[in-house]
């Protein structure tokens, strides 16, 4: 299980950077990032190497954010891989809220971050179907 930070940002010039500059100052490394936006505001979701530290620092700097558990799965870099994982989730009747992928993977295989309503069940079922669950230490 990974810890993801969801941060409220306004949809304005420079607003993402208000977050990244704070993280940079404290030497926190971003591993994955996704934004969901409307014309007015967005939720920035990031996975970092030191989530608790990042939360404390961002809160000190006045951000509203939340730590949420998410799951990451290792995929082979070939056609049909994502479809296979999604089929497992669909067949189990689980609700997948969003997915995004990692920024950089040293071993070059894609890692996909997923937010699913019932994470424990998802993890178990994915494992049963031979999907490799990823961690930050990979």
């Amino acid at each position, binding site marked *: 299980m990974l810890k993801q930070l*969801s*941060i*409220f*940002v*306004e949809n304005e010039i420079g*607003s993402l950077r208000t977050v990244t500059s704070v993280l940079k100052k404290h030497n926190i490394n971003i591993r994955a990032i996704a934004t*969901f936006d*409307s014309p*007015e*505001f967005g*939720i920035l979701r990031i996975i970092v190497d030191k989530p608790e530290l990042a939360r404390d620092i961002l809160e000190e700097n*006045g*951000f*509203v*954010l*939340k730590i*949420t558990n998410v799951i990451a799965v290792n995929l082979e870099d070939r056609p049909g891989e994502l479809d296979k994982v999604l089929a497992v989730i669909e067949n189990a009747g689980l609700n997948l*809220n969003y997915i995004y992928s990692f920024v950089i993977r040293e071993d070059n295989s894609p890692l996909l971050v997923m937010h699913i309503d019932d994470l424990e069940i998802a993890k178990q079922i994915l494992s049963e179907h031979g999907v490799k669950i990823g961690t930050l230490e990979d």
Partner: protein
Amino acid sequence: MIWSKNETLTRGEMESLQLERLKETVNRMYEKNEPYRKKMSEAGIRPEDIRSLEDLKRLPFTTKDDLRDNYPYGYFSTPKNEIVRIHASSGTTGKPTVVGYTRKDLETWTELVTRIAVMGGATKDDIAQICFGYGMFTGALGLHYGLENLGAIVAPASSGNTEKQIMYLKDFESTLLVATPSYALHIAEVARAMGIDPAKDLKVKTGLFGGEGITESMREEMYRLWGRDMKVTQNYGMSELMGPGISGECLELQGMHINEDNFIPEIINPETGEVLPAGEEGELVISCINKEGLPLIRYRTKDITRLVNEPCKCGRTTVRMESIKGRSDDMLVIRGVNVFPSQIEEVLLKVSGIGPHYEIIVDRVNHLDNIEIKVELCDDNKLDLYSQLTALEEEIKHKLRVVLGLSANVKLVAPHSLRRFEGKAKRVVDLRK
């Protein structure tokens, strides 16, 4: 054309009529209106102390709170069975203010609105389409009876459904439009988008505008959209005093003639309550001197203006008031609806997940007032899903609509991003010209 000879009295004639009516009204209030009698006693003044118009300033003020404190009928100055109609103001802060008319009051009202309509160029040959909302507001029914009294054909179209309004304007060949100025501009824009040029394809030649002030840039825009030969006038009123019919512009467009035989205007310093010399700008205070149901004395309108005494080319001798420059309180008029920031604050305080700070931005988009309210998000639990944030926005919008009676845009912003104030907070940014 001038409808009534009372609009052309000499100063001496007007003042003696005013004094006679003021005395009657003060007597009526002292005898029949307990809250006002109490105020007069506290001020140490009795009806017989009113010997000249100069003595008016010794009388206590009446405020909207007086009406609210005596909601609904406690401020009426006639037995309830003599009242034949009630109206109410937008009761946005808690209870509305209720106003009552005797049969004679309704006749007076009709007469005064007819004067205003004639001043603005209306004739008995007009086909008048009234695009004010019919209901508890005084605007629609006031103009309705005034124009009917004149002999015009009245089409009570009410407000909303702009495309249907345009169909009526076209098919009924309406020649006179009653609306808020911003709605009239909006109708013109929509008509153009439908391929109808109001200046060429419609027959409207007279616009009687009220409910909100008209600025010179709006008037210019009105000519551009409705045609250079359109008669564009504004008139002024408020339900507490009567409704429309207090004052209106004549075609000279040099201020609004006050129906002085019915309403005595004063300009005061809103801070001290002191009466200001002629020609100075301040808060307009009006005394009703020809009413039975609710003749308010020295009612504080909270509207800022100036009085003009010079004779008008139109021939009327009545004093004029300039366009309203602003308010001595923080009331906003949004699409003709009165809105107080305190009402918005009350709604926001009851919504969980947002902070206590807010900013109100009022602007005019496509000729319609637009109100946006920025609030700070402070609940991290809403960050799980994007839909939770939009649901929060919708919840705030809904609650505001219920209380204000109009829809506002809501914008969630980051915590601590709104300006903080040490003294009195300035929460309203009004970008309308």
